[in-house]
């Protein structure tokens, strides 16, 4: 008997954190203007210590104004989508659940687009509208996916497919009302893109977004031991003293928030929420007290690496990062689905 300890969680997370740091440094190095690893570490160190005058100005602008914000955004989006995925998988008792597959990302995208058209300059309107879209889609898919009072795995996935195509149709309709240039930008954003949304002074923006991530992710993490039992069976969890309805509400709201947050800043990047938790389960087991933090860091690593590839493979042409995650995620999804059917 070797139960999970907080120390083990901390050690594994520290290891993954180091991996994320390496991924970030490599990503900072790659680009049209070459900077050595030593210079990157020096620049980062000086920046953290506030000694801006000792940094060469071209390094400062490339690292702090161009490459680092994009990496931070990748970390935020990856961690949010991956945490939302683990939450949805427990909420719906389905290992195939993921914000993208269930149509929740499309709902968030629709909300965001409506906000962009209706109130293009209102602060936070896009995020809030994306959350509302995500929450409404989760509720709709959840109720459509029930059969005989129980969530049915196959019906749920069908409900997700229907939601994606229905919401995409509305998005297409809205996009045809836009001008040609806006439409191209919007199409790129829809495929998942970390470049187009960054404001000129991203620091306070990041602070707000990371705050939302910590609150929503923390809420899901606080229920992790309850989720372990719910995954064994809802009835049994109730008998063991879990307030199942309260846990579901918390996870439902928080996971919708995280999806809305990610989609509002990066469009619909798919399969992160299914790919990462699956790999983490294979590596570290199914205990949610370990799975949620490892998936969050793993999601951050995946999106940072995918975005680095997206902007360097066909350089100077950039690919949408969502196209790359879908290329990796779709085969994993099919593998998981076939294994369950067998």
């Amino acid at each position, binding site marked *: *008997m070797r*139960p*999970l*300890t*907080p120390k083990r969680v901390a050690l594994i997370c520290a290891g993954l954190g180091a991996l994320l740091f390496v991924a970030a440094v490599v990503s900072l190095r790659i680009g049209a203007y070459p900077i050595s690893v030593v210079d990157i570490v020096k620049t980062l160190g000086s920046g953290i210590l506030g000694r801006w005058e000792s940094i060469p100005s071209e390094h400062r602008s490339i690292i702090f104004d161009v490459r680092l914000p994009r990496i931070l955004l990748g970390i935020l989006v990856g961690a949010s989508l991956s945490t939302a995925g683990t939450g949805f998988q427990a909420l719906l*008792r*389905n*290992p195939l659940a993921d914000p993208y597959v269930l149509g929740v990302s499309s709902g968030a995208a629709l909300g965001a687009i409506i906000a962009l058209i209706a109130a293009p300059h209102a602060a936070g309107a896009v995020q809030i509208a994306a959350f509302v879209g995500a929450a409404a889609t989760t509720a709709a898919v959840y109720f459509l996916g029930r059969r005989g009072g129980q969530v049915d795995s196959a019906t749920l996935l069908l409900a997700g497919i229907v939601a994606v195509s229905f919401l995409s149709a509305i998005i297409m309709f809205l996009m045809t009302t836009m001008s040609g240039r806006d439409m191209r930008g919007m199409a790129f954003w829809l495929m998942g893109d970390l470049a187009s949304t960054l404001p000129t002074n991203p620091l306070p923006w990041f602070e707000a977004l990371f705050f939302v991530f910590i609150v929503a992710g923390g809420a899901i993490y*606080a229920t*992790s*031991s309850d989720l*372990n*039992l719910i*995954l*064994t*069976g*809802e*009835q*049994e969890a*109730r*008998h*063991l*003293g*879990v*307030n199942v309805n309260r846990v579901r509400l918390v996870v439902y709201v928080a996971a919708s928030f995280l999806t809305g947050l990610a989609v509002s800043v990066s469009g619909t990047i798919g399969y992160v929420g299914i790919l990462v938790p699956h790999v983490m*389960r294979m590596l570290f087991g*199914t*205990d949610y*007290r370990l799975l949620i933090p490892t998936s969050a860091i793993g999601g951050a690593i995946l999106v940072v690496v995918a975005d680095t590839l997206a902007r360097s493979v066909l350089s100077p042409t950039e690919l949408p990062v969502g196209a790359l995650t879908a290329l990796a995620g779709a085969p994993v999804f099919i593998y998981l689905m076939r294994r369950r059917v067998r």
Partner: protein
Amino acid sequence: MSSAAGSASPMVTSERTPGVRLKVEQASYAYAATDRSAPKFALGPTSFEAQQKELVAILGPNASGKSTLLKLLAGIERPLSGRIEVDNTEVSSLDLRTRAQRIALVQQESELLFPLRVWEYVLQGRYPYGKRLRFESEEDCLLAANALAQVGADALRDRWMDQLSGGEKQRVILARALAQQPSLLLLDEPTQHLDIGGKVELLRRLRRLADESRYTVLVVTHELNLAAEFSDRIVLLHKGKCLRVGTPAEVYDRALLEEVFEAPLDVEMRAGGRPRVILGANFGT
């Protein structure tokens, strides 16, 4: 807690230890009645008591109200009228975690979504005692190990749940319930998927848990003869009514059983005062 078989034999323990564990007073339940229709009673007023160290069998044909009674006892549903008390506290007034510390329910397990080791499964029984993220303490591990020993499943500790046989799985589910350290142990048709050897072994084990570890055990079952052999008290239900409560000898009346189970039956009284039910002579006519 010892798991030695010792002198445990399915003898009637007529001397009752003081202290009523479970008290059911005129408890009834009806499914949601609308304004237009009269309430449809799933269980009419039912009363009985169970003491420490007692094994009570709840018998009855399908749709007799057995599951409803079990739901009321487990606190899943609140009785429409009457009271159900465990250790002098009304079950429906207990918060979820306190309830889980007093009452453990063993049901047919649901399908596991992700693979789980036996020890991880049994440790779940410690959930009602945990704090915050509920990282398990050494005490929790010790209690889980004890629970596994009590059901004779030490050797299964590191196996995967989905690789166990029916009987092994049933023992592990029972171990998780014991890890809850309940005073009341409820089992919903635990013998359903077991062969005859497994059924006898399980009931012997439950008898021993009641005798040696002072649990009060309630079993919903279809097994008339096993219930007669191992239980102190029988609660007989029929079409949502509680027909009779008493020792097996008191309840096993030929005419009554024939009426309830709608089959030709004979009741033999064996040495030791335990009745036995066999198919009647006019079987097949």
